[in-house]
């Protein structure tokens, strides 16, 4: 039996072996777009006809069309040798797309940055680096997204006196034309040396021997970014853990000075957002001083800082000497004097559209001042006075403005103890008003019926507004 069985087994084994080798060969052939030989030549195994036949029969992808075209081969070689010989401008759009799909994302930026336009290549680069890529936040431009995020990353990971500023400056010529917004959510402090404790004793003697910069100096960067429009800045450290120090969440005077100069040098800036950075009156005044007469700044956001009356006075000056359209000072410590200063500026201003003074300490004096200023102002559309400890007199002042002028569109007086009197005054004003489409009177101790009435008026105004808009649309 053994003698009979063994050859049979051997045959079976050989057959299985053949199948395995075939299966091994097949995918390699199927995934061999770069093989310049037609697949047949590879298949001509010396074993015999059976093998070749099975391969062709079992490879469903084998067609003559698999033989790559010469033009495709050329483009492939261009893509593979792009670093040495970048050919891109001369190609037709379809060929460019072909190359963009095949270029390695690890190519040095000095080759690709100004050569390859926005498209698939940059998409591939972005998706390789980051998991979340919402291109709609970047004006639907993958290239812009790539460079902005690159630069942000570099700045966020910049350690003063450790990282060479040159590394960032090298990047500038590549990304200069594409960076429109910088959203920086952390700025690292200099590295603390271990013998810091001992040196503290000598600190008084060598006061300036500490780090040359407390945070990244924007002075070297902002004047070079010729198309920067938005700057979001936070002086803080993410994930600090147990190394927490208050210093990490503060903007120092030196930082403020350098930043103020840098902002002055950046002429294209439209939006500045400097929040949660412990800005006091002095720093605010310094910044505002440098931002006076800025040619393009439209939006200023100093929310969640420590700006007081003096700072507010400075901002009031900025309002009268600038083109600000949106001012956000929420969560500061502006009191009645500061509010008065702002109100004074507002009475003369003709550009500001939105003013946010949420969570300040404006109180009735400031509120009344703002209400009076609104009588003279003709532009402000949005006003937020939520959580400002204003009471009925402010409401009366505001209701006067609302009754007389149909400019204000949204008003927020939530979290203020307006009382019945204020509510009634507002009701009377709103019955005459036609422009307000949004009125927040929550937690204001106003009578429910009045609130309902005001809401009714607001909704009618809203529907009227919509109708007007629709009419405008149809007119267009």
């Amino acid at each position, binding site marked *: 039996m053994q003698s009979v069985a063994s050859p049979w087994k051997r045959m079976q084994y050989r057959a299985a072996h053949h199948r395995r080798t075939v299966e091994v060969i097949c995918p390699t052939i199927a995934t061999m777009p770069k093989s310049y030989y037609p697949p047949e030549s590879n298949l001509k195994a010396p074993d015999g006809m059976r093998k070749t036949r099975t391969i062709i029969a079992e490879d469903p992808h084998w067609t003559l069309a698999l033989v790559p075209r010469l033009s495709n081969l050329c483009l492939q070689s261009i893509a593979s040798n792009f670093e040495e010989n970048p050919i891109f401008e001369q190609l037709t759009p379809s060929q460019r797309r072909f190359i963009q799909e095949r270029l390695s994302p690890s190519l040095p930026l000095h080759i690709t940055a100004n050569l390859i336009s926005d498209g698939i290549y940059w998409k591939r680069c972005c998706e390789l680096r980051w998991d979340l890529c919402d291109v709609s936040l970047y004006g639907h431009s993958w290239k812009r997204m790539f460079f902005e995020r690159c630069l942000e990353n570099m700045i966020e990971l910049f350690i003063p006196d450790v990282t060479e500023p040159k590394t960032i400056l090298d990047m500038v010529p590549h990304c200069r034309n594409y960076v429109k917004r910088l959203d920086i959510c952390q700025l690292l402090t200099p590295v603390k040396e271990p013998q810091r404790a001992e040196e503290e004793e000598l600190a008084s003697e060598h006061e300036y021997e500490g780090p040359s910069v407390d945070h990244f100096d924007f002075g070297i960067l902002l004047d070079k970014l010729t198309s920067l429009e938005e700057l979001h800045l936070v002086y803080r450290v993410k994930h600090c853990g147990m190394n927490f120090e208050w210093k990490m969440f503060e903007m120092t005077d030196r930082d403020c000075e350098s930043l103020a100069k840098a902002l002055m040098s950046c002429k294209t800036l439209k939006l500045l957002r400097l929040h949660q950075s412990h800005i006091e009156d002095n720093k605010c005044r310094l910044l505002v001083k440098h931002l006076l007469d800025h040619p393009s700044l439209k939006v200023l956001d100093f929310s969640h800082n420590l700006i007081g009356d003096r700072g507010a006075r400075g901002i009031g000056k900025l309002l009268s000497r600038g083109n600000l359209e949106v001012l956000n000072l929420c969560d500061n410590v502006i009191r009645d004097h500061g509010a008065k200063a702002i109100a004074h500026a507002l009475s003369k201003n003709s550009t500001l559209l939105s003013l946010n003074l949420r*969570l300040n*300490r404006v109180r009735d004096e400031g509120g009344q001042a703002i209400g009076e200023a609104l009588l003279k102002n003709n532009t402000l559309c949005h006003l937020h006075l939520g*959580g*400002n400890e204003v009471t009925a007199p402010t409401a009366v002042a505001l209701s006067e403005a609302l009754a007389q002028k149909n400019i204000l569109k949204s008003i927020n007086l*939530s*979290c203020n103890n307006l009382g019945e009197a204020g509510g009634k005054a507002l009701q009377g004003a709103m019955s005459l008003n036609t422009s307000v489409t949004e009125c927040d009177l*929550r*937690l204001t101790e106003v009578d429910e019926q009045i609130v309902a009435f005001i809401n009714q008026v607001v*909704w009618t105004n809203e529907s009227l507004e919509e109708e007007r808009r629709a009419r405008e649309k149809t007119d267009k």
Partner: protein
Amino acid sequence: MEEVDMDPEKASEPENVEVKSRVFTLEDDKDPGVELSGEMSEKRLQEREKQISPRRITNLQRHLTTLVTNIQTAADARESMRRKELEEARKMRLELLENDMKSSQEKFEEITRGWSLTKEKVSAQELQEALNNQQLLLTSLLEDKKKVIDELQQELKLGDDHFVKDLKKQAEERDLMLERMEDQIKTLTKAYREELAQTQSVNQRETKDLLTNDTSDWEQRMKKLWDTEQARLAQRRKTVEEYEAKIHSLIFETMDKQTATKIEQNAKLQVLEREHQKTLASIIVVRLNQIKEKHELEVLTSSRVDSLQTEKKNAVAKPNNQPRKTSQSLSKDYKQSVQQYERLQKKLKQIVVADARTFEEMWATVEAEVRQLAERALEIDSLICRQHFGVAWERPPMPLAASSSSFHTERQTHRPARRAVSQLYHTEQSLQRSSQRTTMGVDAETESADVDHASMGGTATQSEGDAELEDGTLTLETVTKVMELLWEEVGFLMEDDPTLLASLEKEEQTAIKLGSLLFSFGIEEEDLPKLAHFLLKYRQQQSEQTERVCDETGESSDQAAAFDPTSDLIHPNHVLPALKSFLNQYMKSRQNSCQSSVVHTEGRGSSEDKAYWESLGNVIPDSKVQLWEEAEKTLTQYIVILTDICALDTETDSLRQQNAELRMLLQQSLNPQVCHVTHQ
């Protein structure tokens, strides 16, 4: 703090509910209005529906956002409250600290005063007391400070706890906010979906309505179209039927017409055919008449006067009978053509004879010339042989004599043939002449008396046959008789249908029979009399033979006598062999006559003549010619030498002259000297 925190929540929650309820009430308020308006008209209802759905969505949006933002505003409120409290706490703390500072200052001053008092003290006890007092004061101060510190620390702790609590709360709120946001999104999407579905349904309804309207419209129009089309179709059918009926009637009309015309034409055709047949019959009759007339003419021409008379008579009797005229003219033409043919034949024969004569003359002259040339060549040969080679010349065996003799003999042999030909010719001529004569005679006879034909036949033929035997000519009578006999005897060879002949008259029968017979034998009509003659002769020979046999036997005379009366011309049994022999002879003679013209040329072109001429040409054989050539060569050499010699002779002559002159001069010169010498 808790209460304060809870307040906004509480405030917000019922508000939400109320807002919701209000919204619903609003919607409820509107519903009856909608119903009322729905009674007014459906369109308005639809418009309302359209308006309501966005309103509902805006309401939803508003309420949901307020739900979300409520938390924020609550947080804001709490924050502001916290800040307020913080400020108050700070104020209190500051006051407390100030008080504490003031009291501690007083105490400190007391202590410092105590220290100054101690300096005044001298005694140790007092000092000790003072010290103790101071110590007490200090401890009290310290305790106060400690108290304050503890209080502050407790506050701090409280604050920390608060902070943690706040953080937790805020986290919770944040979660809540997230939840609400999600809810908002969900509800909004739901609402949007509903709205979408509604709009879709409205749209579908509208499209359905439109579709139904359109389809109904379409159907109506189609129906209209269909009706109109059917009406048209019916009309068309009617018209078609009308036209068909018209066409049928037209077809029948035309058919009738055609059949009528056909019948007419058929009748005409039949008439025409009948006429044609009639004419054919008449033509046949005319032809037969013509044949008859021919015979008659032949009969008529035998006697010219009678013929003329008869012609006149005919002319007078049937002046209008054209076929006869034409036949006459045709016969005339025929005669003329026959005469012409004969003339041509004669001419041909004469030309042949003349050609032969000229050929003979040519032959003789050429032969003589050739002979002379041969003679000359032989003479030259003899000269060369004798003079040049010095060999005795022998005359080569002369073929000329024999050949010439043979030629002469040949000529002599030819001559009888020629003579025979000429004889034949002569006989032919005479025969023709006689035949002409006989035909005319026959014509005359037929013309003169048809009745006498049979009775007279026997005697006339005999007499004429005798005369003919003498003259070598025969009368037509005998000829016809012989021919009839021939026909009777040999007719079985023919394949002609006797029924055809039966319809014809006897004479015509015989004529046709004769024609066919002669044609079958291949004998020409001219040779007919010859045949008759031969047959008669044959009879004579036969009779002679029989006579001889009779002489020998002595019985045959009776037999012959017995034979003779039945057939005076020839015995019917002898006709066939006689004919055979005649045919043989005739064929020979014909061949001869045919060849006779050729014989002169062909006979000469034979091999004998060729040999003769070659022998004449080769009088000098090739060996001799070679000899001659060699001789010529030697002779030319000899001539050259001779010419050289001749030239040399002239030179020698001139030299001789010079010599003589010189001698003369020498002598002259010598002579004076001699003279002189002699003189001297």
